[in-house]
């Protein structure tokens, strides 16, 4: 049962801006720890600039590894934000309200983490910047538009920019609120600038609302295109195990699966960290869990399609790739873990209502999902390179190195630190949105029962 709006405007603001205005101790310790991890990753990166990529586990002919896996993983996570906020906004789902901002913030930082990896892993990063941003007009040296690696940055940066816009538009009223609540002048000044003079006139409200709707409508195609293009990095080639037409929707739905799970995790952590009981309630994660059940099942169907139509051709290398994905290297262990954690454990549990509504359970299951989905990316990307053609002479094994592991951890640290910092300087809970929700939620008398209801114009 969704509890009736028991709080007035003042309490909303006080509790939502609490973390912004006063800092608890754990904030410093956590961020210090995370920053050291990130620093370690940075050191590895610098040393790679100087010594070449010899520290990575790459070999001939397996030239992509953990870094690309992680790139795909973060792109996947980044899909949560837009999916949750845009789709739910369009479908006017009420439970979205406290969720959206968190989701979008996760998107922004995971996207940045993602774009780092293609840069880091390339042989000459200092030159790689140039195909992401073609600037060389004099010599007429342009990137090759046929390469998916040129589609990637275009799609990703479009996505990043539009997401930031999206967040900013939704953020305006809260910035205005923060401006009015902030004590110290610096902060006030900053918020004044950022709020763009949002005073809450009905015209401003209308524009803000329309902009939100429009942006979410526009952003949806981008959201689909980004991960499709990422999937095409692999699928356009004729490499068996990569070249499967189902890849695009498969990656997209997998991304939503992992992304929404990540958002649930993030929400639960925020609730615990920022004491947001009453804002993030069982209803919210319950609703998200229902979405997850559908998404996960769809994802499983596409996994089945990928598998069956991969083997369908009965090309020797294709079959070998799948054998490698199941029996090769560490996969006898990893493959079961992958499927169990990403589907077999979570989904049946989510079918149970009490699990869906328990924060502890959802925390654990969503974490499991993302472990599984990380492995899924590993499974999709690497074994295909270990079994590339019927020239079995070049069949190889990929063994990741420590520095790759460090870089992966560093990316996680980066995202968490980013989200924390965001929460510190900007209102992470959409106060205005929540207030609107509070206004719109009423009750409806039906016979003897009174049912919670929402207002729609």
């Amino acid at each position: 049962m969704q509890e009736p709006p028991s709080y007035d405007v003042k309490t909303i603001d006080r509790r939502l801006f609490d973390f912004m205005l006063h800092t608890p101790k754990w904030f410093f310790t956590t961020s210090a720890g995370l920053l050291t991890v990130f620093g370690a990753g940075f050191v590895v990166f610098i040393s790679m600039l100087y010594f070449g990529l010899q520290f990575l586990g790459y070999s001939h002919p397996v030239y992509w590894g953990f870094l690309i896996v992680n790139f795909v993983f973060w792109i996947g996570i980044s899909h949560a934000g837009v999916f949750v906020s845009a789709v739910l906004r369009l479908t006017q789902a009420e439970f979205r309200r406290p969720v959206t901002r968190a989701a979008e913030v996760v998107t922004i930082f995971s996207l940045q983490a993602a774009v780092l990896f293609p840069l880091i892993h390339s042989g000459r990063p200092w030159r790689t910047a140039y195909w992401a941003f073609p600037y060389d007009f004099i010599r007429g040296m342009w990137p090759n538009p046929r390469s998916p690696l040129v589609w990637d940055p275009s799609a990703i940066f479009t996505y990043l920019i539009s997401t930031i816009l999206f967040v900013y538009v939704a953020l305006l009223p809260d910035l205005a609120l923060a401006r009015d609540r902030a004590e110290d002048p610096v902060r006030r000044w900053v918020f004044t600038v950022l709020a763009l003079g949002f005073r809450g006139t009905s015209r401003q409200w209308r524009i803000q609302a329309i902009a939100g709707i429009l942006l979410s409508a526009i952003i949806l195609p981008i959201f689909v295109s980004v991960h499709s293009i990422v999937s095409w990095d692999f699928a356009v080639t004729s490499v068996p195990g990569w070249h499967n037409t189902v890849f695009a929707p498969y990656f997209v739905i997998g991304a939503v699966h992992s992304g929404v799970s990540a958002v649930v995790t993030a929400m639960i952590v925020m609730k615990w960290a920022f004491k947001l009981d009453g804002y993030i309630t069982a209803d919210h994660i319950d609703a998200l869990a229902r979405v997850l059940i559908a998404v996960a099942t769809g994802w499983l169907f596409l996994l089945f399609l990928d598998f069956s139509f991969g083997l369908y051709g009965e090309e020797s290398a294709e079959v070998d790739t799948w054998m490698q994905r199941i029996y090769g290297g560490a996969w006898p262990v990893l493959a079961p873990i992958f499927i169990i954690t990403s589907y077999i454990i979570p989904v049946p549990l989510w079918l149970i209502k009490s699990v869906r509504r328990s924060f502890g359970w959802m925390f654990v299951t969503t974490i499991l999902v993302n472990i599984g989905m990380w492995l899924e990316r590993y499974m999709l990307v690497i074994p295909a390179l270990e079994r590339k053609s019927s020239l079995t002479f070049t069949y190889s094994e990929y063994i990741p190195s420590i520095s790759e592991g460090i870089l992966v951890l560093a990316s996680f640290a980066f995202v968490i630190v980013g989200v924390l910092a965001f929460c510190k300087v900007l209102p992470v809970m959409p106060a205005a949105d929540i207030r609107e929700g509070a206004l719109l939620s009423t009750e409806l008398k039906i016979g003897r029962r009174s049912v919670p209801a929402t207002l729609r114009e």
Partner: protein
Amino acid sequence: MASPEPAALAIKLRPSWKPKGLQVSNSNVVFAGLGLLAALGLVMLILRIVSSGDDRASWAYPTAFFMWTLSTFATAPLVAYVTRLTRGYWGYPIRRLAALWSIPALFSYLILLPSLATLPSLDGRASLWFGFRFGVPGFADALTIGFMFVTGAALMWLTSIPDLASGDVRLKSPITRSLLMNWRGTTKQWLLIRSASKYLGAFYVMLLAIGTTQVTTDMGQSLIPGWRSGIFPLYHIVTGFQAGVAVIIVTTYLLQKFSPNIRPFIGQEQAVNLGRLLLAFTLLDFYFFWADYVLIWYAGLPSEIAAMQVLIADVYRIPFIAGAFGIFVIPFFAIIFNPVRRRLWALALISTIIIIGNFFDRVRLFVPAMSNEKVFGHGPLSPLPGVVWPNVSDILFIVGWAALMAFVYLAVARRIPAISGWEMREGAMLRQETHFERGHIMLLAKPE
């Protein structure tokens, strides 16, 4: 067209109101005409079974027709369940008339069985069944699809029991009465129906996905060496969703136009929301087609390119282009305009185009497959087979069966009310239209 005044709604749902079957003026003429054509269709089917035993090519167009029914009429009911699962407030009036399509869909089973019988052996060609050889493909496919049809019908029946039991519906035969499972409307029975309909609906979705994957592979992909596309079943399903919505729109439009006791319940909100769905699916269609096409073009594996030349580029170019225009080009550039989405008749027009386009698409997909001789091996298909145009009997077959579908639908809709009474009442309960300052707002209750 009627706009939903809440007051009117309240009046129409006064306690004495009871749902009724179709009341179409001079319906008998329509019935007679459709009946004749339907009979023709059946005759054509029998002739085919008798004359051409296991000549696969002669079943090419029937198969295409079946795939078309699969993606239109068999998919239409899904929308009903989707709105039920997501508790979309606008879906109440159209749930039943969508669900009714599951009965005509049943009949297309008659086409599936003989054409399945003509499939060649699985040895020496790629197939989803790999090494497995027991009762595949024919039996397995027939089973899944049949199961799906039955589930659909059962679901339709289950959700219409309360209306049927509430009397005033012409149910003479004892069988139909017995199927009512002596409905008393106890709380237990209500809960049963609600949950059952929810889960059966989900189950139906899964069966549709799996069944489509099976038949599209066994009667499509696996018959053209080198055609290997994991996304194809999905493409088929999604175009099916689009066509399903289109079917519902057309049905809704026709019924509210010709049946006075339906008209009041259909309003703009149905049009707008169905229009949105249609737009979404139209976009998705293109996405899935492109995801399929661009990869094969880019990788340029000879075998796949050869298959694409058959399906898209060379051999079946005309059906392909017709299908592309009908499914994507025309609908998309029409529906993106709000005025179109607000007018039911415009939507109905577009939907008709979509349904026809979908048929052309099915033709270019399954006729080459069913009429292809060299089905064995993995290598590229060469030389490319020629295009197979429909002959007179094919055309008669298609016309007849299309008529049969309509005939059956109308026949059923006469008995079973096309507006679900109990759900309309529920909808009216959970919803209140009140005036608030200027303009009126809507109160939606979400019971848990």
